[in-house]
């Protein structure tokens, strides 16, 4: 069920931590992906359970199927119901200074999980990974990690329950011991099979995957989880990170640890459409958290791919193609009100609402979001980052 680690010869779509591309430049087939990876669909019953256990409405990303796949999430919920807590683990590879909305999605969801379940969180900034893959200097990747930490903090994590660390700064005995334990369990052949390394790749790359694996084990954080070796771990991430954790789940029982659970999201589309690529070199392919209200208005109006018809007459006649329309997709991510979204979908799909109106609503929603982020970001100083990243105990982590 789990070990589908053959390289991607038969499949035309390629999904791994460093590359995401669809078949023939089309859309990603998520059903095929779930099948190939061997994870499970997050169905409505699980969402209902979350609602019941947390006593609050499930997050918009759950309701809209943004987070749509999982591994053993039901076990987390089973244990939670019996009074057993867990901790959250997520992370970011700090490869660029500016974050766009797509980058924020796992963090927005993780914040909800932290608030809803009242559990602690560790956030890993893989500055070593970016140093190796993007050929940045060590100093530059550490600097980027700190900069990104500020935007992450601005997502609203509770400092009394959150530990942020960067690999370069946190490497400590307990962490390294676990890295070696994991590394001993993965052959080069296996690593090549999972991650596609070649003889041309430097040895730093091959030795990195254990670094992303070990935060799944509470013993990697003795200052946080002393005597809590049995604590479960839930990892919210985008589905392209699945290979790391397939490997981790394979290794875990062999070194006497629990397998971490995962809850996975689909990819956030570029402004130009599903087939477009969100790239750092094209600022118009995404909305950045530093964009002004004017930038947002401009980008949505000019670059957001529309599923509307080419003329108003045709549009009133045939309605919009909701499958490819980017504003509708973005509203699906960020418009809280289910009823309003349904209304817009119905009206736009029938041709009664025009692209301009949909875009206008989206601009409002995004501007509010980016503004809230900007205000929160302004409050984050170097001292705040230092505090979040300090090695300290979190006595109130389950409150």
């Amino acid at each position, binding site marked *: 069920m789990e070990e589908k680690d053959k390289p991607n010869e038969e499949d035309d779509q390629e999904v791994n931590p460093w590359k995401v591309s669809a078949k023939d430049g089309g859309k990603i087939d998520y059903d095929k992906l779930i099948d190939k990876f061997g994870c499970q669909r997050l169905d409505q019953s699980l969402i209902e359970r979350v609602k019941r256990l947390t006593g609050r409405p499930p997050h918009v990303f759950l309701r809209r199927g943004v987070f749509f796949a999982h591994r053993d999430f039901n076990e987390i919920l089973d244990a939670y119901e019996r009074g057993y807590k867990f901790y959250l683990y997520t992370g970011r590879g700090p490869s660029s200074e500016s974050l766009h909305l797509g980058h924020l999605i796992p963090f927005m969801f993780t914040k909800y999980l932290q608030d809803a379940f009242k559990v602690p969180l560790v956030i890993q900034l893989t500055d070593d990974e970016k140093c190796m893959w993007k050929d940045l200097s060590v100093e*530059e990747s550490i600097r980027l990690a700190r900069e990104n930490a500020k935007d992450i903090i601005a997502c609203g994590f*509770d*400092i009394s329950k959150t530990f942020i660390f960067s690999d370069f700064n946190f490497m400590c005995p307990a962490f390294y011991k676990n890295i070696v334990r994991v590394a001993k369990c993965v052959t080069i052949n296996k690593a090549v099979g999972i991650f596609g390394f070649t003889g041309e790749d430097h040895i730093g790359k091959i030795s990195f995957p254990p670094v992303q694996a070990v935060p799944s084990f509470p013993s990697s954080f003795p200052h946080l989880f002393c005597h809590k070796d049995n604590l479960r771990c839930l990892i919210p991430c985008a589905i392209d990170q699945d290979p790391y954790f397939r490997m981790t789940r394979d290794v875990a029982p062999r070194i006497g640890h629990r397998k971490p659970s995962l809850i996975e999201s689909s990819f956030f589309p570029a402004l130009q459409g599903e087939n477009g690529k969100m790239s750092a070199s094209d600022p118009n392919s995404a909305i950045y958290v530093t964009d002004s209200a004017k930038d947002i208005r401009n980008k949505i109006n000019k670059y957001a791919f529309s599923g509307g018809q080419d003329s108003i007459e045709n549009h009133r006649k045939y309605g919009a193609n909701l499958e490819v329309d980017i504003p509708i997709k973005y509203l699906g991510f960020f418009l809280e009100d289910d009823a309003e979204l349904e209304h817009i979908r119905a009206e736009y799909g029938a041709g009664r609402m025009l692209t301009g109106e949909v875009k206008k609503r989206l601009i409002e929603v995004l501007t509010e979001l980016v503004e809230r982020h900007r205000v*929160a970001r302004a*409050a984050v*100083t170097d*001292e705040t980052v*230092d*505090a979040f990243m*300090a090695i300290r105990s979190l006595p109130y982590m389950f409150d």
Partner: protein
Amino acid sequence: MGYTKEKLLARLKELQIDFTQYEHPVVLTVDEQAKYVGHLGGGLSKNLFLKDKKNRFYVVSALADTKVDLKVLSQRFGLGKGGIRMAPEEALGEILQVPLGCVTPFALLNESARRVSLLLDQSFRAHDRCFFHPLSNDMSISISAHDLDKFLKSIGRDSAYVDLEANPTVGKEQPPDLAHLVPSDAIIVPESAALTASLQVPTQNDESELMNHNPLTTTTKTDKQSKEKKIFKEKTANEVHSYRSYANPQLFVEEILDKASSLILSEITEETIKQHGDQLGAVASNSIRKRLSLELNNLAIIFKNKAYTEGFRAGTQQSAQ
């Protein structure tokens, strides 16, 4: 508000810093200043107030005849080409709290300029004394570089002397040499600044010509803008206000009450009274809860994190002693 010239001079005397003061009519450019103090020996300074795209601010203080190329500086900071430009007028008042034509290292005395990065021309050290405005354009004081350092040290600042005319290559192997002088934090200035900035920049597009020109000379364009910006100033005062409320309980509570009361007022109108009658209380209260809950939660977490950080800092500094 900001420090006055008198307070500054008193402070310099307290610190036993040696300086000489010269009063003259208000001057807005280095050329004008030269008319009154140029013959006295000592280097005239030109002072630029700069801003980058991420709202970080810099004061570059140089000898009047040092060539300062903003494009080169921008690269040396690691901001790419064209990453640095003249800061807008608003920022001058808000952050440095000095009038036009009065940018000076002494402005860093103000709390609002805490996060402004200061670069000093290493050529200052070649002169016995140099001239700066002491927070007012109707006076110049001459002071040695050594004494300027003494003053800066007294306000907790390091003196960063830089060869401003250098033009080192910046590339993969050669990291930007001034990157460490980029402030770590942005400063939020009311929105009007962003608006007028885009209008102001064209008046100074030949940046290499800034050698003998005080860059913040008023032009007719900025006169018009000052009328517009007055309107925006009231609206955006709230923005700046909320920024400072992050760790202050009273301001925090004010912020909450402001938001709540403005929502209440918007919920209770003739229309809604007619619509809901005596149910209006319950309806308005539900609506406010729904609309405010997310925003207030966000504010609360910011407040909590700020408070924790302050405590953490106090605790670690204590144990470090």
